[in-house]
């Protein structure tokens, strides 16, 4: 295609000055409010990594159960071991295969702890959002996500007092937690709940294994055998990095566990994920715990961490009767970097899975 270079050069030189705008018009999108970007489906981002503010990053809270249930960190009489728990859940998941519907529909709620400012005060608030996600299993239809801001509330009574002392503002400043423990410049964010907002996406790559995108069709093809699943997931192993673990085993643990809550897969694949997790080091049983909605299940956890966000406990709450995950949460174990402002034990983020099913119905408009 080297012919007529002259005419292309002449055309390039004839580029009219009128193509250039006279100045920079103001940003045409109200990015700080309202029109939220499409949901980030990447489960790895649920870790409040350095680069990513906890504002949208979402993970799960297993709240310790008040009487008569045991507290999650207390030894119970005869708790299931981690592998007993995982293998029981796997057994029940095996029979929980997807139906034949065109869509996988999930409903979930996610919340995350955000440090906000008002005047000179800073305090913690929990920002919650609910999601209804319609995924086209064939990839032939658009995916649809209906998200609803549920508002922000002070995390603890002390935070509530700080919020009230600041005049109970409905607009607070949210700054990005920086690796040095400071907060970046704050941006005004409303703490009020919002109306449901529907977004469609034709991009089939809605999920990721670590940093590698996968399509909904890829998920449909995941194997139900734990060793085959390990091999398949490791095909997406790229060394990790960013907010993704750089240790291969940790990476595998993180990606396999994302198949329990964040990424909807059929029961037999979830069973393989449970069995795979049971072979990995670092998983411990928590006994009976409850999710943020008070639903009880068996908990298991592992710890991940790096210098950017300190040491974080990842907890999962499993309904062993069905093999389904009720929810997931992250808690601070050792505060550092972006989590430096939080006390050990603080919930960073949570998600609860409210429903997951397949259907031939059409997604809501």
């Amino acid at each position, binding site marked *: 295609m080297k012919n*007529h270079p002259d005419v292309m050069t002449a055309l390039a030189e004839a580029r009219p000055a009128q193509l250039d*705008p006279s100045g920079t018009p103001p940003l*045409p999108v109200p990015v700080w409010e309202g029109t*939220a970007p499409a949901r980030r489906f990447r489960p790895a981002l649920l870790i409040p990594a350095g680069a990513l*503010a906890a*504002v949208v990053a979402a993970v799960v809270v297993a709240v310790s159960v008040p009487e008569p249930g045991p507290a999650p960190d207390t030894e119970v009489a005869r708790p299931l071991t981690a592998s007993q728990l995982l293998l029981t859940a796997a057994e029940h998941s095996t029979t929980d295969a997807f139906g034949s519907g065109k869509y996988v529909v999930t409903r979930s709620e996610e919340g995350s702890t955000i440090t906000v400012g008002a005047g000179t005060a800073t305090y913690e608030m929990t920002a919650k*959002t609910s999601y209804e996600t319609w995924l086209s299993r064939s990839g032939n239809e658009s995916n649809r996500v209906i998200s609803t801001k549920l508002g922000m509330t002070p995390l603890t009574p002390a935070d509530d007092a700080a919020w009230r002392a600041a005049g109970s503002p409905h607009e607070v400043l949210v700054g*990005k937690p920086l690796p040095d423990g400071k907060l970046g410049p704050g941006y005004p964010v409303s703490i009020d709940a919002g109306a449901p907002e529907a977004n469609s*996406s034709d*991009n089939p790559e809605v999920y990721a294994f670590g940093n590698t995108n996968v399509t909904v069709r890829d998920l449909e093809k995941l194997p139900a055998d734990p060793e085959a699943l390990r091999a398949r997931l490791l095909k997406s192993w790229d060394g990790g990095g960013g907010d993704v673990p750089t240790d291969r085993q940790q990476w595998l643990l993180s990606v396999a566990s994302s198949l329990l809550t964040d990424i909807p897969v059929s029961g037999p694949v979830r069973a393989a994920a449970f069995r795979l997790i049971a072979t990995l080091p670092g998983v411990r049983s928590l006994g009976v715990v409850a999710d943020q909605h008070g639903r009880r299940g068996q908990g298991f956890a592992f710890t991940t961490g790096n210098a950017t966000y300190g040491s974080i406990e990842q907890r999962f709450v499993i309904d062993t009767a069905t093999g389904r995950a009720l929810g997931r949460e992250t808690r601070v174990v050792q505060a550092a970097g972006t989590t430096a402002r939080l006390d050990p034990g603080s919930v960073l983020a949570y998600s609860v899975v409210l429903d997951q099913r397949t259907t031939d119905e059409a997604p809501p408009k």
Partner: protein
Amino acid sequence: MADPEAAEEFTALYADHHRRVYAYAVARAGRPLADEVVAETFLVAWRSFAKMPRAAPLPWLLGVARNVIRERHRAEERHRTVAAELRQWANAAEPDVADGVAERAAVLTALATLSEHDRETLTLIAWDGLSPRAAARVVNCSTPAFLVRLHRARNRLARAVAATDQPTVIKEPSR
């Protein structure tokens, strides 16, 4: 929930690329519509921000702008507007000032006579500065297919330039 991280990144994206999107919009839809097209394009970009390719956003943004233009504005009107603007810019260049100016006027006049399709193909490379591969992504075709289009559009532009009354240094196409 507005995400400050995303908002910051998006603001940077806008600062880096709005001029390029504006230029594309002017060449495709004319100046009167360009601001609107830019605003629409970045609104779509914000809504899809989590999924847009961050590494090479320009072809993606121009692809969005292209769809915005095609959905919102009627083709014939756009064609007339852009052709009229090109002629106006060509005439604004005084032919007696210098050879370069005359050549520019001839090229713009010739460009105004081409189909919208050809104009887009040529200006994505010459004015928007895209590689054929990136340009192919904008118009949603394969790179080889784009190169074929480019080859043909170049030939037609060269012929159109030769056919204008303006003095020109453009050579006749070799085939």
